[in-house]
């Protein structure tokens, strides 16, 4: 498959990318899952999927950790570096202008991807960085930085921050730090034995004392889809801001962040076919304008004296120092790729694969799947425990068959503790995952307990 060029903001020269002609795929007009032949066509764009591991064809079921990248994304970054590379927002030469234009075009592309305005998008180095930017901005507001407008973010003793028991450490530790540095209290929405929760559980924890509610849109362990609309309503009624960890949703489903009503959202480039080293923070304009910066330095200031400085408006205020420019160009290309295939179709494809995994795992003795049961929405990932066999050993067995999965606590120790497990094995699907790969995975999982002498 190849990329639509018509969506590009301008008819900029494509250099060596010309071979990415026009795809044969029906552009995202349906919500049907991708067909086998469409997936095969997509896979041809991903060099990393063509390899073998341990003498077996690679079955990459670890896109929840990091996704593989299509040629168009690799080429876009290289094309930028070959023809337009320069520092952005400084310098007056031609390349500096081209680079700045590419950088800002990329921002507009990513903004439109999540229904936002360009100035509501801040480039960061990854989602963890995005979440820290918000948490430490609030620390600074709590210390009086940012003046009167920042007071809405100032926390003190008696204030509460609410997360869930299922959060990735990236959406937990920054809030623990915010609490520790301001005297606020961190509370959490508990999860049930499956690792999920209901809006009513949130209602018991979100009160008038709540100032921040930070939740994952889709759990990276259970695939549970949070009741975001209900939580936003509860939080806003309490006067709290909602911070959404969209790492496992933005790459896989259509997002309209303003329509969802969240105040901030974070996601990473490398989980959505883009590069490492770039992440996104979405913030409502009014809030970004009020939040004090967390990193300071060059390119985020207007006037500087030896005594102090005035800061630029958002988003530049949050982008101190040299920025990941070629990565921004590449993440925008990743967005174009995803939009060309169609987020609705990607979501439907992954949902079908998750159902196939769940149905297959249900027939294997000794498997305990964590997360939503039948009939409850789940994203395209499945984590499970194999009775008597540690997840590392499960993963090692699958790896010997060429199947790459994630093993461990997936940066969610409290959730695993709640589930009574130290580690699980996680298979996660993406647009390039085939039903044949899922079937190979299921066959191998079925052999694991025998190999380790458990049956």
């Amino acid at each position, binding site marked *: 498959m190849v990329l639509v060029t018509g969506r590009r903001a301008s008819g900029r020269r494509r250099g060596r990318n010309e071979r990415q002609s026009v795809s044969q795929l029906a552009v995202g007009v349906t919500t049907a899952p991708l067909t086998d032949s469409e997936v095969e066509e997509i896979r041809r764009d991903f060099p990393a999927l063509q390899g073998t591991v341990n003498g077996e064809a690679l079955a990459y079921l670890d896109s929840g950790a990091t996704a593989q990248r299509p040629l168009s994304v690799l080429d876009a970054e290289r094309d930028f570096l070959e023809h337009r590379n320069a520092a952005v927002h400084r310098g007056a030469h031609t390349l500096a202008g081209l680079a700045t234009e590419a950088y800002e075009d990329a921002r507009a592309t990513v903004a439109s991807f999540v229904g936002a305005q360009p100035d509501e998008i801040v480039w960061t180095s990854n989602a963890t960085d995005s979440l820290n930017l918000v948490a430490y901005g609030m620390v600074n507001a709590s210390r009086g930085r940012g003046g009167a407008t920042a007071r809405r973010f100032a926390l003190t003793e008696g204030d509460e921050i609410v997360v869930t028991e299922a959060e990735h450490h990236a959406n937990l530790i920054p809030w623990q730090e915010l609490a520790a540095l301001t005297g606020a209290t961190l509370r959490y929405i508990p999860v049930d034995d499956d690792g999920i929760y209901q809006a009513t559980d949130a209602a018991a924890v979100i009160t008038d004392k709540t100032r921040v509610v930070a939740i994952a849109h889709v759990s990276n362990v259970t695939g549970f889809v949070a009741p975001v609309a209900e939580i936003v309503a509860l939080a806003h009624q309490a006067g709290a801001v909602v911070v959404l960890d969209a790492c496992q949703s933005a790459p896989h489903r259509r997002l309209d962040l303003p329509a969802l009503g969240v105040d901030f959202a974070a996601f990473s480039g490398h989980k959505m076919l883009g590069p490492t080293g770039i992440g996104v923070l979405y913030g409502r304009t009014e809030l970004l304008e009020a939040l004090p910066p967390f990193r300071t330095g060059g390119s985020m200031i207007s006037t500087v004296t030896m005594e102090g400085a005035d800061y630029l408006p958002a988003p530049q205020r949050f982008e101190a120092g040299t920025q990941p420019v070629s990565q921004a160009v590449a993440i925008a290309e990743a967005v174009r790729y995803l939009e060309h295939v169609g987020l609705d179709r990607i979501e439907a494809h992954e949902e079908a694969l998750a159902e196939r995994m769940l149905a297959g795992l249900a027939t294997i003795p000794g498997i305990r799947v964590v997360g939503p049961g039948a009939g409850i929405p789940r994203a395209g990932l499945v984590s499970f425990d194999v009775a008597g066999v540690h997840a*590392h*050993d499960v993963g*090692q067995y699958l790896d*010997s068959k060429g199947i790459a999965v994630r093993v*461990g*606590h997936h940066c969610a120790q409290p959730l*695993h503790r709640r589930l009574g497990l*130290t*580690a699980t094995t996680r298979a996660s699907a993406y647009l390039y995952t085939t039903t044949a790969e899922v079937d190979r995975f299921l066959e191998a999982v079925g052999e694991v307990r025998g*190999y380790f002498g458990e049956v």
Partner: protein
Amino acid sequence: MSGLDSLYQQVILDHSKQLSGFGELERADAERFERNPTCGDEITLQVALEPGTDRIASFGWQGRGCSISMASASVLSELAPGLTMPELQSRVDAFREMLRSRGVGEPDEEILGDAVAFQGVAKYVMRIKCAMLAWVAAEGCMVQLR
């Protein structure tokens, strides 16, 4: 032997099913907790010395983890009793060297005994920490006893 079977040698699978030294000692001279932060595997290892000597009387450990980390603790528990602390340190050094060898060279079975079964781990860089977990805990105990 297939790649996977060279990692999971029968000695390792047997030890992971029948753990030697698992449990708490009645009397311990040193105790050390170690955790592998990437996978959450953990072990608490205890050492008791023969009174008035630096000779190891018994080893006891508790913990949970993968078959490699559990079998490694089990093998160490059989190897250590009767050794002086410098003798045990030389085993730890030899074990570490074997795991870092990337599979090059022959480990010394004379001093490592059953622990040579972990030679295959050297080719799996992600699993070296699993195999080392109990041995690092033993080193920690010896530091306390010095």
